[in-house]
């Protein structure tokens, strides 16, 4: 329990993390600590290194140097099995050769716990995740028959079924319309609040970050140039440095809104 607590307090830590392609820095060096709990949004221009950083944290990509710890585990050396119970990651594009139903997909999320043999606790977790993302009644539908919003929710349900303290989502709003994007962010928020997860996500639309995130990390040219609360980050000065385009910031219902459509 005390060990659990020590791990719990650690959050996500990056120290001197670098990634180069053909000698060119695409990321880093990055030193960053993301505390435990809540929703953290990574924002930045295209090619700023948001997804690269997220996939390095989620150990899908090896950094060239530096150290990444998630919940006290070094992602480079920790046992893959143990890591899979601490951190889960959902990438932007998921194409499978197998044809899976929603329930089969979500069931895979339990693999680190069940090794494929489902206990009744596993089944409860699967159905809880499906219900949490409003997919009850869709269990037997094939994921390639779902709408974009439903499919995205099914993948998030799979990641939630994995029941890790840390959940990484790479642009979960891609391809979602207004209604579904709002629904998705509501569910992400609820997962952090009701289930106590630490959620880190890459977001393209800064206004979603402003409206839902507890912390925002802004990247530009592979470096973290600012991190803090939405109030600290969603300002014309910071956003213009991040996106290199004129931005006006308004206040609406207590949240910041960036307006940048016409310079």
């Amino acid at each position, binding site marked *: 329990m005390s060990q659990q607590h020590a791990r719990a307090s650690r959050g996500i830590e990056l120290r001197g993390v670098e990634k180069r392609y053909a000698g060119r820095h695409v990321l880093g060096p990055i030193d960053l600590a993301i505390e435990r709990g809540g929703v953290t949004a990574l924002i930045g221009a295209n090619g700023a290194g948001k997804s690269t950083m997220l996939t390095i944290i989620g150990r*899908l990509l*090896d950094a060239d140097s530096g150290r990444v710890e998630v919940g006290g585990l070094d992602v480079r050396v920790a046992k893959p*099995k143990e*890591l*899979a119970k601490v951190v889960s990651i959902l990438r932007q594009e*998921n194409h*499978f*050769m197998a044809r899976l139903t929603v329930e089969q997909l979500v069931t*895979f999320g339990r693999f680190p716990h069940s090794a*494929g043999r489902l206990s009744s606790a596993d089944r409860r977790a699967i159905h809880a995740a499906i219900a949490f993302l409003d997919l009850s009644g869709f269990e037997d539908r094939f994921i390639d028959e779902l709408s974009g919003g439903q499919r995205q929710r099914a993948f998030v349900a799979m990641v939630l079924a994995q029941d890790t303290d840390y959940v990484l989502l790479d642009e979960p709003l891609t391809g979602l319309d207004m209604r579904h994007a709002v629904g998705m962010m509501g569910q992400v928020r609820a997962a952090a609040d009701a289930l106590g997860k630490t959620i880190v996500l890459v977001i393209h639309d800064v206004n979603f970050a402003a409206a839902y995130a507890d912390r925002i990390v802004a990247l530009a040219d592979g470096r973290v140039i600012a991190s803090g609360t939405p109030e600290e980050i969603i300002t014309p000065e910071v956003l213009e440095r991040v996106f290199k385009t004129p931005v006006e910031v308004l206040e609406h219902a207590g949240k910041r809104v960036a307006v940048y459509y016409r310079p």
Partner: protein
Amino acid sequence: MHGDEKFHHPKGRGRTGAFWIIMQTRLVSLVTILLVAVAQSVATVLFHTVTANRILTPSILGFDALYVLSQTALVFVFGVSSTGLEGIPKIVAQSVLMVGFATLLYGWLFSGRRANLHLMLLVGVVLGIAFQSIASFLQRMLTPSEFDVLSARLFGSISKADPAYLPIAGAIVLGILIYVWSRRRSYDVLALGRDVSVGLGLKYRREVVVNLVLVAVLVSISATMVGPMTFYGFLVATLAYQFAPGDRHAEVLPLAIGIGLVTLLAATFVLRHLFSAAGLVTVIIEFVGGALFLIVLLRKGLR
């Protein structure tokens, strides 16, 4: 048509009248068919799983070409009378060569940080072409009689299998089968690709290398027994995916083995007993498999 059967049974079929001799040859054929069916179908399904791609065949890794090259090299170096190397030692040497090649290739390509499955497949294709070219270069320098012997060896045939090899092959195939079956649930995850596998806690690199070496072992066992077959495994696996109730390996693997067995048995029975053309079994199966491959390729391409 009966050329290679006569080679094995100098007295000719039906003339000895000795029941047990016939039974023995039939039994050898049956066990050969069983082993080839298991080896090819498991190898292909595993290969599809590891590469997360269902329109590949293990021969893309250049094993068939390596088999052809090693056979050609044997005839080239030792001549027709050859042999100095026959029976078990030859088969063991053959298998060690192919598995050693696989382990080196995968181990080397997949150990670095640049580990990349597609790069590895590409290297396999290029090496396959290289082996093929070297083999045909050597073949050009053979005498006609040597070339004739080589052609007979390279021509896949059920009745060509060496009975002495069956116990070894059987033990290896059974061992691999037990291992594969015990890991069938992990294969379901592996089939979802690298990112999901890593995310769900599989040791991805290790899985890829181990399973590709297993594929190499199975393919080389099958090739050593009946010669190279490119599309038979593909035919069997594709039918299994089509008819299995789900995509889980617990469902696909037994079905693939079953379909492989039935296909090979039926083809052998029909061709041997109705058309007296036992030597054509693998040719016909390869033809059907190749046709199916084209159909699947065109359909997927059009979508």
